[in-house]
C-alpha cells in the first residue's frame, strides 16, 4: 500500500481550488491518542468530482470536517481559492465567513433548521451571507424548482421525507453558489433510485457550475462518472488501484 501523490504538480497548483498538504488530526492524548488522519495530501480542481471511500472509522468524516473548517486539524496545510487557511494553525481569517461564502455542505443527517420551512431553510443560508431576504426567498424558490421540490416549499422539515430533506440540504449547500461542495454520505438514507438521482444532481452541478464536489460514500455504485476516487485506510489516502493491489497482495 502506498500513499497517494497529489494529482497535480506544483506548476499546476494555482489551478486547484482545494489543496491539502500533510494534514494530520489526532484525537486525545498519550496512550489514548487516535490518529484519525496521517499526512493526508491531495488537491481538487474547479468542477472536479471527487469521491472518498473507506471503512467505518477510517477518517472520512474527520477529513471532511477538517477541510470544511469545522474541525481544527492537528497539523498540515489547507489552501482554498488561493488563500492559505490553515498552516499548522488557523491563519487568522474569519473561518465562518469564509465557509458561508465559499463552501456548501451536505451532511448525512440533513441538519435542516426544524422551525424553518424548506424554502426558508435555503433562504436563510443566503440571508446570513448578506443577501436581502426577499431576493433570497426568490432564489430559494428557483433552487427548489431545480431540485424538483417547488411543491414542498412551505413544508417544515419534520413532514418532509428523507429524500426531500436531503434535496433541501443540497439546495442550501448550493444557495450561495459555492466553489466547493462537501457531502458526507449524501445518499446513505436514500433508496438506490433516489440516491442515484442525488448523485446525478451533484454531477450536474459540478458540470454546469464548475463547482468542485467532494463526497464521502459507502456505495461504490453511486460514484460512476467521478473524476477521482480516493480510499482512506487508517487515516491515509490511497488511490483506487493501490487498494486493489493491497487487497490482492
Amino acid at each position, binding site marked *: 500500500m502506498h500513499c497517494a501523490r497529489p494529482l497535480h504538480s506544483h506548476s499546476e497548483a494555482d489551478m486547484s481550488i482545494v489543496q491539502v498538504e500533510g494534514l494530520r488530526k489526532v484525537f486525545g492524548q498519550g496512550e489514548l491518542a487516535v490518529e484519525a488522519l496521517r499526512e493526508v495530501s491531495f488537491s481538487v480542481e474547479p468542477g472536479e468530482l471527487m469521491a472518498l471511500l473507506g471503512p467505518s472509522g477510517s477518517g472520512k*468524516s474527520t477529513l471532511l*470536517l477538517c477541510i470544511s473548517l*469545522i*474541525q481544527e486539524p492537528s497539523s498540515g496545510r489547507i489552501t482554498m481559492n488561493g488563500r492559505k487557511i490553515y498552516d499548522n494553525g488557523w491563519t487568522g481569517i474569519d473561518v*465562518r*465567513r469564509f*465557509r*458561508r*461564502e465559499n463552501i456548501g*455542505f451536505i*451532511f*448525512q*443527517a440533513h*441538519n*435542516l*433548521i*426544524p*422551525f*424553518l420551512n424548506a424554502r*426558508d431553510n435555503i*433562504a*436563510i*443560508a443566503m*440571508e*446570513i*451571507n448578506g443577501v436581502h*431576504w426577499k431576493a433570497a426567498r426568490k432564489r430559494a424558490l428557483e433552487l427548489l424548482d431545480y431540485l424538483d421540490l417547488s411543491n414542498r416549499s412551505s413544508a*417544515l422539515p419534520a413532514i418532509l421525507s428523507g429524500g426531500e430533506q436531503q434535496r433541501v440540504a443540497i439546495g*442550501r449547500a448550493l444557495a450561495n453558489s459555492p466553489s466547493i461542495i462537501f457531502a*458526507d454520505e449524501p445518499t446513505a438514507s436514500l433508496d438506490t433510485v433516489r440516491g442515484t438521482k442525488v448523485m446525478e444532481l451533484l454531477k450536474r452541478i459540478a458540470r454546469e457550475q464548475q463547482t468542485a464536489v467532494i463526497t464521502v460514500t459507502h456505495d461504490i455504485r453511486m460514484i460512476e462518472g467521478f473524476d477521482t476516487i480516493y480510499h482512506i485506510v487508517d487515516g491515509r489516502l490511497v488511490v483506487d488501484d493501490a487498494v486493489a493491489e493491497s487487497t490482492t497482495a
Partner: protein
Amino acid sequence: MDLAIKDVQRHVGKFIATIIGVGLLMSIVLIMNGIYQGNTSDGVWLIDNTATDLWVVENGRGGPFNEQSRIAEESWRSVAAISGVAKASPFISYTVQRRVAMREQQFAIIGYDVFGGLGGPGRIVAGRPIAQAHYEAVADMKLGLRLGDTLHLGVHDYTVVGLTRKAVDAGGNPLLYLSLHDAQEVLYDQDNRARERSRSAETERLIRSGYSSAETQRLLPLLSDGSGTVNAVLVKLRPGASIPRVAADIERWLYLSVYTSRQERNLMLEGRLRKMAAILGLFRALLVIVSLVIIALLIYVLTVEKIKAIATLKLIGASNGIIVRLILEQSIVLTVSSFLFAWVVVQLTYDHFPRTLVLLPHETLASFVVFFIGGMASSLVGIVHALRTPPSLALGG
C-alpha cells in the same frame, strides 16, 4: 427574516401556554406587592383620613387603634376647655361581625358627634352625611348597601343615607359611620333579648341583696356597663396654637395620653402592622426568587431546545450576532408579554380582591425591571452555552 419569530410560530400554543404560566406567576408577585402595600395603607387609612390634629386617649395607652383605649365620654368637654383647642369631639371605633346585605360581614363601626364634630366620613361619594341624632348611617360601598337600604343592628334599624368608597379600618374592613350614641348602643346592647336577660339577672341580684324594686329600677342604669365611654377625643387646634404645648397641657391636667396624627401613624406602623409587614415582605421576597428561578429555567430550556439548530446555523456560517439575537429576542418577548399578561390579570381582578391592593407604579416598574434583568441574565447563560457549542454538534446523530 426573524428567526426568533419563526421558531415561536412553530409552537405558538406552547409559547402562549408558557407566557400564561409565567404571567400568572408574575401576577401573584404583583398582587403580593399590592397586599404588602395595602396592609400598611389600610392600617393607617383611618388615621390619615380623619381630619384631626390630636388624638386624646386613655392614659398610657397607644390607642385607639394600636391598643384599646377607654375614656369617659364627657372628657371631651375638659379637653375643649384647654387653651389652644378649637374643637374637641368624642370618637368611638370598634369591629363587629353582623349580617349585613344578606351576608355575614366584618366591619368597623365609627361613632362620632354628627352635629359638627370631628371624625366623620371624609368624602361621601353618594348621598349625604348623617343629619339626625339617631338611626342614620353612612356605609362604605364594600358592605354592599345602597342608599335608602336599612340595616338591623342590635335593637334598631338604620337607614343608609350616604356612601363612602374605600373607607376601611386597620384590618381592611369597611366602615359604617353612626352617630356617637347609636354606635354606643350597638356596641353595648347586642340585642333585645340579651339585654333583657342581663337586665333581669341584674334585677334579681339587686333584689337578692335586699333592694326594693323601686330602688332597683333607679340603680339599674348605673350598673349597665358604661355606655358613657368613648375610645378617643379628637382635637382641632386654634390657628397658631402650639401642638406640643396643647398636648402637654392635656396630658398634665387631664391625665390622658395625646398623639399627633403622625405619632398615631407611627404607633400603628411600629406596632400592629409591623409583624404582618415582615411576613408579607418575606413572602414577597420568596415569591420573587421563585419566579426568577422559574423564568431563568424556562429561558435556559428555550435555548437548550434549540442548541442543535444553533449548531446548524453556525455550520452554515451564521455570525454570533444572529444567534445572540435569536436567544435574546425570545427571552425579551417571553418576559415582556408575560409581564403584560400579569399586569392585565391584576388590573382585571384588583377590584374584586377581598383585601385592598395598593399597586404603586414604581413598585410595578421595579418588579418588571427585576424580571427583565433576571430574564436577560439567564439568556446570557443560554448565549454563552450557545456560543460555546461547536458547530460539529449538529452533525452528531
